[in-house]
């Protein structure tokens, strides 16, 4: 931080105030606040019956009073502790002036209990109580949040911890809920993005950067490097839509200055359950001086891997074990992906001790590889104005792409390539006939799509921009495998290809160039195993979340990684397998809140095979 000249007022805003916070609304003094929140940052509720009240609570995280949406008056919402095998009952009462909802993120349940207004149920009207009731069939670390409007951005999120039937005891067990807080009204924030999409980006290239490049790389090389970006009207410095300009990043509801603190005795085994509850922020998490061992991701146990840093996508969860042996404090450091701010906490044997907070890295610009160009120079035909040329180019790519595609499957299965038919449906514009994964549907050619990746790559082992040059181990999906081997079949019945699309300048987001408003539900047949292949045609990283069913990521060599939210990097293509074993309507969307709102959202309907087609009427 000290490498950036930042005024005191600005520093206080970015790093927040030390005390105060969400509990002001409860009338608690800061001392009481520390007393109640020193362990988890939010109270923990456990058992089988829960009464949750959603309301407005005044908070002060930046030195200004603002209005949060809270559960039982706390931010984050209380940590709910369930036990696998129990049936839980949750009575949720709405004290807001607007409809609300709670979605249990990553939980397998009947679709009526999933909490998505318009798909699962009508939502919870003001003054009403809705009672959720479902059996808990899984264990692990998950979270819950509102699925109504922008209530999640205003604080309606909390941790879910489900103890397994056979517990694996550790000495200490801490939930670490990372989030992004803004004093702004999120409706206003969204409108601002629609009016000026780079409003929050204070990392653009200036004329002095250009002069420096001229000196260091030469004028010709600099102009050559910039040519693609300038012609595409994209900024390689556009790393996050919403930044530390408006966000204060929180650890368990504590600002960086508030310094959420967890205690340990040297030699103890400590489980940290990281949950990224942000609306828009990817965090790069590390604990300087301490390696972590991942034991679960998205609630599901994985074969343990030791690492030092991990980029945690929005809505993902990561359980790690740390075993600090020294009698010293450690800093939990979570930088935002664009290096505009950080969340922080402290692991310490003594509440009076804290450790140094590392400086944030300089932001790393995107490369052509991040644009799906794989080092291609020149972007001729990319601007979509010359459709004829475009088609020719794409045709040239089809042959190559099919080869790539089969190659990818081969890599995934470790066996001979299997031919899985692409799902097509004449009634669904998301499912046109296609000859390859990389092929861009006609619907991708329109005002809502400003780029299309020509050579998207398998990038599971790529830590992503900003983490490629690390001299320590950065965890990637390629390192991970669900514990106990593949949890389901490696073979798919059908393959659904979706391209992640958008227009940065207009702030439009969609699948296949089709916004939710213009889409029809995607049908899956009950019991089938479907491969979903995602191709990222944008320069943003998108966490894609399917409700109600597992997404088994194909990490290669016949291995699967069972997840509920899958992050797709710019320029990347990846595939995962879904067992359509939960009948009903489910949400499927990008978990960046404003992308979801803009239309990067689908309804998925799991129907009995005999009735398929009727849902599209």
């Amino acid at each position: 931080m000290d490498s950036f000249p930042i005024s005191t007022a600005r520093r206080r805003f970015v790093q927040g105030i030390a005390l105060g916070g969400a509990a002001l609304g409860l009338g608690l003094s800061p001392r009481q606040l520390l007393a109640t929140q020193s362990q988890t940052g939010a109270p923990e509720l456990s058992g089988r019956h829960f009464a949750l009240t959603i309301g407005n609570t005044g908070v002060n995280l930046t030195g200004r009073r603002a209005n949060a949406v809270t559960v039982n008056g706390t931010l984050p919402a209380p940590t709910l502790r369930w036990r696998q095998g129990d049936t839980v009952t949750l009575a949720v009462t709405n004290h807001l002036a607007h409809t609300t909802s709670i979605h249990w993120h990553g939980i397998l349940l009947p679709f009526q209990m999933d909490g998505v207004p318009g798909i699962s149920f009508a939502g919870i009207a003001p003054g009403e109580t809705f009672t959720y009731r479902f059996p808990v069939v899984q264990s692990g670390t998950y979270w819950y949040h509102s699925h109504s409007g922008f209530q999640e951005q205003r604080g309606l999120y909390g941790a879910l911890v489900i103890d397994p039937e056979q517990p694996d005891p550790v000495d200490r067990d801490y939930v670490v809920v990372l989030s992004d807080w803004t004093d702004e009204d999120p409706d206003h924030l969204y409108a601002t993005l629609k009016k000026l999409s780079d409003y929050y980006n204070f990392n653009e290239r200036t004329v002095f950067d250009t002069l420096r490049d001229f000196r260091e790389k030469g004028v010709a090389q600099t102009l050559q490097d910039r040519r693609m970006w300038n012609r595409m009207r994209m900024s390689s410095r556009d790393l996050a839509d919403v930044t530390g300009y408006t966000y204060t990043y929180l650890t368990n509801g504590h600002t960086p200055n508030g310094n959420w603190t967890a205690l340990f005795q040297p030699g103890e085994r400590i489980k940290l359950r990281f949950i990224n509850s942000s609306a828009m922020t990817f965090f790069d998490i590390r604990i300087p001086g301490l390696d972590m061992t991942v034991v679960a991701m998205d609630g599901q146990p994985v074969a343990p891997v030791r690492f030092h840093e991990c980029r945690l996508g929005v809505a993902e969860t990561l359980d790690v074990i740390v075993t600090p042996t020294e009698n010293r404090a450690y800093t939990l450091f979570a930088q935002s992906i664009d290096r505009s701010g950080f969340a922080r906490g402290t692991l310490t044997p003594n509440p009076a001790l804290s450790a140094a907070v590392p400086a944030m890295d300089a932001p790393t610009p995107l490369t052509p590889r991040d644009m799906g160009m794989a080092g291609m120079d020149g972007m001729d035909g990319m601007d979509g104005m010359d459709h004829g040329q475009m088609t020719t180019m794409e045709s040239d790519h089809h042959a190559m792409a099919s080869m790539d595609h089969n190659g990818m499957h081969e890599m995934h299965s470790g066996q001979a390539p299997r031919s899985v038919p692409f799902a097509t449906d004449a009634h669904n514009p998301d499912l046109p006939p296609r000859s390859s994964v990389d092929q861009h549907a006609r619907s991708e050619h329109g005002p809502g799509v400003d780029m299309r990746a020509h050579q998207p790559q398998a990038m599971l082992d790529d830590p992503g921009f900003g983490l490629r040059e690390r001299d320590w181990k950065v965890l990637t999906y390629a390192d991970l495998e669900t514990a106990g081997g593949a949890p389901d079949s490696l073979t798919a019945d059908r393959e659904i290809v979706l391209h992640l699309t958008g227009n940065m300048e207009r702030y439009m987001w969609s699948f296949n160039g089709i916004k939710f408003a213009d889409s029809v539900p995607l049908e899956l047949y009950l019991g089938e195993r479907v491969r979903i292949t995602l191709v990222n045609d944008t320069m943003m990283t998108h966490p894609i979340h399917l409700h109600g069913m597992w997404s088994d990521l194909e990490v290669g060599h016949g291995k699967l990684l069972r997840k509920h939210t899958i992050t797709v990097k710019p320029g990347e293509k990846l595939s995962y397998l879904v067992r359509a074993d939960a009948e009903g309507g489910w949400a499927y969307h990008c978990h960046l809140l404003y992308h979801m709102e803009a239309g990067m959202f689908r309804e998925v309907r799991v129907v009995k095979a005999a009735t398929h087609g009727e849902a599209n009427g």
Partner: protein
Amino acid sequence: MKIGLMLATAVTTLIALPVHAMDKTEPRFTRVLIDQLEVRDADQGMVGAWDASAWYGGDINKLYLASEGERLMEHGGETESFETRAAWSHAFSPFWDWKLGARRDWQPDHPNRDWASVGLQGLAPYWFETSLDLFIGERGLSNLRLEAEYDLLLTQRLILAPEIETNLYGKEDTDLGVGAGLTDIELGLRLRYEIRREFAPYIGLHWQRQFGDTAGFTRERGGEVEQTTLVAGFRIWF
């Protein structure tokens, strides 16, 4: 200023619809941009000038309103020239919108002129904000106008914005002293500091020159065909 008032009223009444997740109604937004609100230190005295626009709508279709003009601030404060435009704008490609609409020129000493307009507005490669409009007026008058603007970032908040506007007329309009062909070029260079993104004071230079018969008409009336002025003002949007 009647039109200005109408514009303000229209904008305040068109309030964005509330946003609800998972419903399929497209939210609409309103943006008002007062790109230039400035004083120009001209030969005939201090001149107030404005260039403002507003849109209301969704991602693809928008109602677009614009106004620009000048007003002499001394000697009783007469509006020298003033134009208002209204258009339906439609996004047809990632960076470009069509605009169909109308324009009225208000002249204190001359007849007003009404035009139908068709235009193209968007972001050209290399980040040039560009618009090209063809106006078709009464009695076979036509006017082609090209405008382009660029933001050169000196820092994240200090921005140098060069801009150009040029007009071509298809036919002479003697009442207004406009000749056929290239009539005028305006060049601006404004240095603004964004205190917030929405609010930026600026200083700059404004140069304009008339050409051809238009310049001839002006000379006959004893006017200046070229003028460079120092300008200072505010850029505001919300």
